[in-house]
């Protein structure tokens, strides 16, 4: 077993060697521009791009003509939300999203509010992180043009009820955009069964390359967008810019492998994830899971270790790459907005750690992490004044703390 151990699969995934091998010829050897219609250099690149487009489409039950290649899920989110808002603004100016969405969605919505006169409803989520469907239904008005709700949350891994959201949006004639960065390739997603109108896809979250993604844009009934990147009219005018053949080939290969291996892989990863959770909770008290356990990505475990600050725990387990909802890991001093949206108190939000498991995680690594976490949490609790107070029977919430 090699150290450090990577357990941050929701941040990014290592590229699969099989993906890399498929990409390699398309950098130097086969360098043609897929938009060159007049010679074989272009033709062969175009064939590779179209094969990849088919592979992406197949993974989500779409038609290849519905796939637009982008630089990644952030661009896809920007294009979907801004593009729909600007195209349909005569129809309405209201957008609905969740407070726990990724910043690529939230910041795009904030921009449309501040600069372009749109109104955005940021729906709170239930304590398990899932959308309240009744509240969503109630929030839709005759001015609503778009609902944007993610497939799976990047911090807490909860999977939203996409089919129910899609059915609701369809019945109310509102477009449904789904940020699928954490969901596509991890569990079965079907744009038709789920009535998804726009779906953002990321390459590097599914063992593909960074810098490539896609946006699914429904053709029937047709969804229209105003482009945000202008130029040569590539991707049917929705996203100009010369296509990166190697990155697109990589995304296609990653999607094909995900489709073929998803069921077995998620079963295996979930087993490891559950083993990690059970291993840690069997020997530590005051460990709380953040987000729903059932409707959750196989490879995500977000837990709060009471009385132990997240960053200090990350220092203690520095041979394990994880991330924390603690403020101390970021430039801001606010703890995770996602955990706060679940109603997790600020003190517990500071104690949260996200373990992300995936394709290359081994049982041996998980056993090592269980042991290290137990030792580290125990050591830090011995140093924690809050742990001492708890053992003396003092309720920490009853203490008057001086905020600073």
């Amino acid at each position: 077993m090699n150290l450090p151990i990577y357990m941050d699969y929701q941040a990014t995934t290592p590229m699969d060697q099989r993906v890399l091998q498929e990409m390699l010829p398309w950098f130097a050897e086969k360098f043609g521009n897929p938009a060159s219609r007049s010679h074989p250099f272009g033709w062969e690149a175009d064939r590779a791009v179209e094969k990849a487009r088919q592979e992406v489409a197949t993974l989500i039950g779409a038609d290849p003509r519905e796939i637009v290649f982008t630089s990644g899920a952030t661009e896809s989110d920007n294009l979907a939300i801004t593009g729909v808002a600007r195209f349909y603004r005569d129809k309405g100016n209201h957008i609905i999203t969740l407070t726990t969405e990724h910043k690529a969605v939230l910041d795009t919505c904030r921009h449309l509010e501040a600069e372009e006169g749109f109104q955005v409803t940021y729906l709170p989520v239930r304590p398990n992180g899932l959308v309240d469907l009744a509240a969503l239904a109630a929030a839709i008005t005759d001015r609503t043009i778009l609902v944007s709700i993610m497939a799976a949350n990047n911090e807490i891994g909860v999977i939203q009820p996409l089919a129910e959201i899609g059915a609701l949006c369809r019945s109310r004639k509102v477009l449904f955009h789904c940020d699928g960065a954490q969901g596509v390739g991890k569990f079965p997603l079907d744009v038709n069964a789920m009535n998804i109108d726009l779906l953002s896809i990321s390459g590097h979250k599914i063992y593909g390359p960074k810098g490539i993604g896609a946006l699914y844009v429904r053709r029937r009934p047709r969804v229209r967008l105003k482009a945000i990147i202008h130029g040569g009219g590539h991707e049917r005018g929705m996203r100009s810019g010369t296509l990166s053949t190697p990155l697109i080939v990589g995304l296609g290969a990653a999607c094909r492998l995900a489709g073929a291996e998803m069921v077995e892989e998620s079963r295996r990863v979930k087993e490891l994830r559950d083993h990690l959770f059970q291993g840690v909770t069997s020997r530590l008290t005051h460990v709380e899971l953040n987000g729903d356990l059932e409707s959750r990505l196989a490879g995500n475990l977000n837990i709060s270790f009471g009385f132990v600050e997240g960053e200090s725990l990350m220092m203690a387990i520095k041979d394990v790459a994880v991330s924390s909802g603690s403020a101390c890991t970021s430039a801001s001093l606010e703890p995770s907005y996602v955990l706060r949206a679940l109603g997790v108190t600020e003190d517990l939000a500071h104690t949260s750690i996200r373990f992300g498991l995936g394709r290359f995680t081994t049982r041996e690594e998980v056993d090592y992490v269980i042991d290290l976490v137990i030792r580290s949490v125990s050591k830090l609790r011995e140093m924690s004044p809050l742990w001492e107070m708890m053992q003396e029977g003092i309720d920490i919430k009853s203490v008057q703390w001086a905020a600073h």
Partner: protein
Amino acid sequence: MAYNDKVLDHYENPRNVGSLDKNDPNVGTGMVGAPSCGDVMKLQIRVNEQGVIDDAKFKTFGCGSAIASSSLVTEWIKGKTLDQALTIKNTQVAEELALPPVKIHCSVLAEDAIKSAIQDYRSKRAVGGS
């Protein structure tokens, strides 16, 4: 973020972790910070007949820099009189540990913890009528 070696040293080998009897009249206890802010420091001092701090202990809930700051000041205040201990400034702690701007509040907390422990000790003595 990569950590400074001194922070790592104090974090991995913290000096003077533990507790003193808070009911001992010679012990002053300071507790500063708040769980919601992500750091709480408890600093205790024991003061001898000569008015010198002869022992200091800490417990800290917080990031590595907060733990290192509290560990460092327990070393610094031992052997000092109360008035000498009160001259320790957060800037000295921040400088010694090379804390980045986002971690300066950890050193502020350490300075506050010293003041709070001394204040507790002095108010105990005043009430005790010694």
